[in-house]
């Protein structure tokens, strides 16, 4: 029986960055996957829960589970939303459906490397690229070792980017410091949020980065907001776009 893959495109990607959803879908199809996109989908519920209102999010959780429980895998180009589904859908009744969804929801990078076991990609991106390690992917889903833990260094996003021809990946001074987005934190604590974002961008700029990429568009939305306000030339692209063979 063919594997059934459900595509989850988080709300802000759907509304503001459709190209990221398109790149994710095209990439998966190129790699031979049959992907379904349930059109009723909305959001994972994280905005309410991170604000302390997880009880208000339970109907959204149920809605998500209802749409996605029949798939073998649910794939999303967002470590943060995936982490939320896996980690925080524990407050609704743990039916078989809920358990299934929590187990099978994967970030794009995990799906490519752990399930599809991708070794090669048809993509070329001859640019200097800086990778922003989004926190929920890195420390929540453990997509990499992280600079705090004393482990053999690893990063799934890095592994994938290294499959792209012509790419030049830079080393940052602070390998995995948070960008300051943090969901509603960006609005509750705007001064710090922006300062953190500025500092991250400066680190990339010092390394001569042309394109700043990440596994989470939410971080990039915040960073891009600062970049555009300050009329900087550095660009942002979600990792799915680069892996799918985008050009500048």
């Amino acid at each position: 029986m063919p594997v059934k893959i459900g595509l989850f495109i988080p709300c802000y990607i759907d509304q503001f960055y459709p190209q990221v959803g398109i790149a994710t879908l095209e990439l998966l199809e190129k790699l031979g996957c049959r992907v379904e996109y349930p059109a009723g989908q909305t959001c994972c519920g994280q905005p309410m829960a991170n604000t302390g209102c997880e009880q208000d999010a339970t109907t959204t959780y149920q809605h998500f589970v209802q749409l996605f429980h029949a798939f073998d895998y649910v794939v999303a180009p967002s470590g943060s939303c995936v982490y939320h589904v896996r980690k925080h859908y524990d407050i609704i009744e743990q039916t078989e459906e809920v358990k299934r969804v929590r187990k099978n929801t994967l970030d794009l990078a995990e799906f490519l490397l752990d399930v599809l076991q991708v070794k090669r990609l048809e993509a070329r991106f001859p640019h200097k690229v800086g990778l922003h390690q989004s926190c929920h992917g890195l420390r929540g889903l453990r997509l990499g070792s992280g600079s705090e833990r004393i482990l053999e260094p690893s990063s799934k996003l890095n592994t994938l980017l290294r499959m792209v021809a012509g790419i030049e990946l830079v080393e940052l001074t602070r390998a995995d410091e948070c960008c300051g987005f943090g969901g509603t934190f960006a609005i509750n604590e705007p001064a710090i949020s922006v300062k953190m974002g500025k500092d991250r961008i400066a680190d990339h700029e010092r390394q001569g980065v042309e394109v700043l990429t990440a596994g989470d568009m939410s971080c990039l939305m915040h960073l891009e907001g600062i970049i555009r306000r300050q009329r900087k030339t550095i660009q942002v692209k979600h990792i799915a776009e680069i892996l799918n063979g985008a050009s500048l």
Partner: protein
Amino acid sequence: MNEHAQKAAEFIRDESRTDWHDEALWFVRTKRDKASHGIPEWEELRELASQVKDNVLSNLDQYLEQFESRAVQNGVHVHWAADAEAHNRIVYSILEKHQVQRLVKSKSMLTEECHLNEYLIERGVEVVDTDLGERIIQLKEEPPSHIVMPAIHLKKEEVGELFHEKLHTKKGATDPKYLTEAARQHLRQKFLAAQAAITGVNFAIAETGGVVVCTNEGNADMGVHLAPVQIHCMGIEKILPRAEHLGIFTRLLARSATGQPITIYTSHYHRPRPDGEMHIVIVDNGRTAQLGREDFRNSLKCIRCGACMNTCPIYRRSGGHSYGSTVPGPIGSILTPGIDLKKYSGLPFASTLCGSCSDVCPVKINIHEQLYRWRQVITQEGHLPPAKRQSMKWAGRVLPSTSWYNFFGKLVSWAIRRFPRPFLYNRFNEWGKERELPQPPRQSFKEWHRQREA
């Protein structure tokens, strides 16, 4: 805006100072990384430490009684204090009995938590903090901004200015050596004159009844060795079952705190000297309540290394005083809501939940998960600001509904595209103060997909 956000915004207004503060603490984090990389079994050590502390928290009553009986056998006076007020009263009664007028103290966050200094000064006792950083902020009449480096928020120029005023050093002096020497001479007088010495406690060993204090300046020893009365104040959670467990923690503590392999002094106090008196005050002050909170109890594993502060991108850019609590930073933000939920209800939100604190923590406290949980409690208890509460209620109705979601998505995109700039970037738009809003595309992904399928 909550209090932390306001104070953080004030702190950041001086951007070069913010950068300096951030770099100073990041430097300590980097030192910690280097030091812990020297220990291949670091992650195992953390796990071990966490498990020992789990065991302690699950058997705290027995360990505390064991500790007390051993200490008493060793000739130590043991006191129990239910809260800060009792702690202060006990300490003062000991001092009163010995007619102590001059007291030296070495760094203790617990006495800070209990506001002991104020209590004693009001009663005519001279209290001198002898840790250099503590002395600096005591002279400056400020609370500590960090639990390990209490004066980290001050530049050496400011310390020079302060010492000039209080200790009559040369005006404009900034040489740390010169300033430290001046402090040393000043403190020496205080040590010699002290009639009692108070220290905090890093570890209390149930098996032996002894307490262990880790310092870099030797000031705890200096105080205790010179004064006839020694008092050690500890929270109930400082217990370790056996002396053999100590090595796990001393290896973790200094490396996590400052990147040193070990603190310069690790002092073990077991019994009073022949002509002296030794007291241990064991304090609860809200700790058993925290122990009873399933989701938050393991915050009591904390060994006060400060690593979570040094790594916290928010702490580094807002300074310890922005938290308004004795223990600032990530660990403070999960401890203090347990003391006064309403007052500190902003603190669990002073985080992006990036999780760096939990990964750096030597005893593996799941700090960022507890921040998330406190947020839920704050809402349940009705302490979330009403506007926020209402907007989340709305979101909770819109987001589970495909049609509402589609409708609002379209509306927002349309508004951003069509509304004139001054209308969008109004004073309520916190996002837009220093950031552009995203540029909505003509078509959402959903619309694109529908077209493609058709």
